């Protein structure tokens, strides 16, 4: 039995400890917002936070996540249960197309803004280049991050995501 803390809830799961976290999140916990794109840490579709740091869950054995705080796209709401400023910015900039990569994009973007509230273009390049978007939403993702950064700044108190 493996104990996992996902989005603030404790789950006991029965899996081989070498199973990638991605499949445990999707299949055992039923949280399907986290996606499978490549399985080899190339695309970022499976990005979740481990103690606030973005990781590729497709190559992270579940045992490495035991006793850590795991956050998925389903868990990024702010404390007052509203959309996270990054999610709101994604709507305002009309970022997603097919949407398949966007959970991963949003997880990477939130982690970036948590550690760097006013990123430059180069910072955005560095933080986001591990996330492929086959629909080519990069220009809008860039705008979305900048918009979210302004919104977070304007809200005064850098609203943190649950594990941010």
């Amino acid at each position, binding site marked *: 039995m493996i104990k996992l803390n996902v989005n603030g809830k404790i789950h006991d799961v029965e*899996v081989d400890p070498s199973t990638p976290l991605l499949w445990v999140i999707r299949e055992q916990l039923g949280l399907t917002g986290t*996606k499978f*794109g490549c*399985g080899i840490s190339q695309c970022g*579709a499976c990005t979740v936070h481990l103690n606030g740091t973005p990781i590729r869950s497709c190559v992270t054995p579940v045992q490495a996540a035991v006793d850590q705080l795991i956050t998925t796209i389903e868990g990024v709401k702010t404390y007052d249960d509203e959309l996270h400023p990054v999610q709101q910015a994604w709507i305002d900039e009309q*970022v997603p197309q*097919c949407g*398949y990569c966007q959970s991963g994009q949003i997880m990477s973007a939130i982690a970036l803004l948590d550690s760097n509230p006013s990123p430059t273009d180069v910072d955005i390049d560095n933080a986001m280049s591990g996330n492929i978007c086959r629909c080519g939403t990069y220009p809008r993702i*860039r705008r979305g991050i900048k918009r979210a950064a302004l919104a977070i700044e304007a809200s005064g108190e850098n609203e943190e995501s649950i594990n941010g």
Partner: protein
Amino acid sequence: MGKWTRRAFISAGVLTSGVVIFGVAVRPGNRADKVRDLIAKDDESVFNVWVKIAPDNTVTAILPHAEMGQGVHTTLAMMLAEELDADWDRLEVAEAPADKEYANYALGKGFVLGDADVPAFLIDTIDGVFLTIMQAMDMQITGGSSSVPMTGQQGMRVAGAATRAVLLEAAAKSWNVPVAELSASKSQVRHEKSARTAPYSEFAQQAAALSLPPKPRLKTPDEFTLLGTDVQRIDIPAKVNGSAMFGLDATPPGMKYATVKASPVFGTNVQSVNEASIQAMPGIRKVINLGDAVAVVADGYWQAKQALDRLEVKFEENGNETVEQSEIYHQFATDMDAATANNDEIADLEIGDARNALAGADTVIEAEYRVPYLAHAAMEPMNCTAWVHDDICEIWTGTQNPLGFAAEVANALEMDLENVHLNNAYLGGGFGRRAFPDYTIQAAKIAAEVAYPVKLIWSREEDMRHDHYRQASVSRFTAGLDGDGKTTAWINQYVDKYDPVEAPYPPYDIDNQYIHYAESGTHVPWGFWRSVDHSLHAFFTESFIDEVAIAAGEDPYQYRHNMLAGQPRIQKVLDLAAEKSNWDQPLPENWGRGIAVHKSFGTIVAQVVEVEVVAGKVFPRRVTCAVDAGFAMHPDGMKAQMESGIIYGLTAALYSDISIRHGAVAQSNFHDYEMLRMNESPEIETYIINSGEKIGGAGEPGTPAIAPALVNAIYNATRKRIRELPVKMHDLTLDDLESKDVA
């Protein structure tokens, strides 16, 4: 149903719940003669479009197209709401399921059954005819480019306008006033003189009893209040919080997981499977030999994948094991030469006398181009969930052709189509790939062998190696110029012609043209890839015309401009792109600028690319895009599609190369089939021209011109002419600016 006598056939009905529906079925506009014949023979509707009005005045648009990111649900709903004067903020949207009953336009029959209170669309796809139709129709199914011009213009708008007309007629009767005194907005009918206002729902039942006008008056663009505005896309909120359901996310109770490995060399079968090789592995349920592939079913995907990787499988040999990419190109060249030597050239387009004109030309320019196979690499790998129980087969997947897929499953399992229930999900990218049902048939066959639902997930490697690829091709040009540098002869030979017909034709005023091709089949399966033949021919023709312009000593933009006098609409788009890009402004050192223009799917797109070449690596920095699709229904959606088409095309031009090694695809995942990423993504500005001409598509036309604009920019920066894609194979280090053309 009798023979169709009208373009649109409309009727209405009342459901038991008090919900009223209005439907319109529309025959397709015809793009290919083959298709017209196929369709004209039967009475099936291609599009059924439906409007529901509930007692609480909620209007629901039932849309016959799959949402794969192109925003089609929003645009089609806007087109309906515009003509219906519906309240956009309270409009709901549902996607029609794949159900033959509804494709038969059986209003009232089956429509009220159970919870399935929505109809479907699409061609009669039984008997496997669908593949032929689909291929002939080139993504007519849900090709992002056809939904708006076809379904939207002929279906949604007609349905909206006809429904509005009967609602007003019913209101006029009920209030006993002339219909001309009534107006409508936000799903309300208004009689100004008596200051009465009432919701549509109040008249819906009476309206349903009236006969719908077959040709209702449609609004002119100056009457639009919704179309042409930037409403928010309706699918986006679910795509920012993980709740949007893709095919991969289906979870019927008790589901297990499967993954497959097909023969690496296309077209061969499984020879033997040694199940003992994975016997000791945990969670394994079953190994299934599917003939041309082997599947492992397990409790989880990871277990299935681990086992499949270990499973000892032998495939038969069919002689293609020795085929290499270089031989394929060699075969193309040989077949092209042979066609000419044996008088076997297949004429594609003949204008004037190109050979004669060439003989009299002052200057002759020749070049040969080639492009590789390309994978679609949709972000969501192919997957499908299937459950065979109680004589039915339930399917959950993302498809561009729901009814066609259901028909294929019915064929594969020898079931009646009505027993195949297909639930279409959001598509994690389509680009043409999800018009091919191979993955769905596999899932159904696997499910038929077990007693529980199975989710089949292809690994990325399987997805990359078993695509229906954009074809590889070679194109040879000879142009003749007169003493003034004007092109007087254009001769072009290429390999294999698919669709659309006009893809290889240059838009320019050239008096003598001879375009022909040779056929050269290979064992590599091909399929529609975003913009189909346009994706290669725009690269060929728009690169070559650039060479011609430079050889004539002229500016590539001006040269094109001068040859477009006969095509003022195209000329205008070209001019706008050039102007907005500041074409004449000098660029920094190591930068270059290139232009290209191409019309596809009724839409004209011109693009100017600025590149910077740093240590031999090309960075596209800025793209200026001008587009004329007649009228942009949803301008921000149009821009998003241009951005998407540009990045998809840049990715292909810079990096993408599917090559054949030992008969199989050499590439396997994103490390060797690379994608453009955030750090290489250019700034993109899109400028829209609403010319008022016939409505064109948006999903594909952004792609064709970008590859030639890019290589033209690279030439401008480096004086190196790239004639073979992808760009990454060429040495572009700037040590020797005078170096020869590459490729």
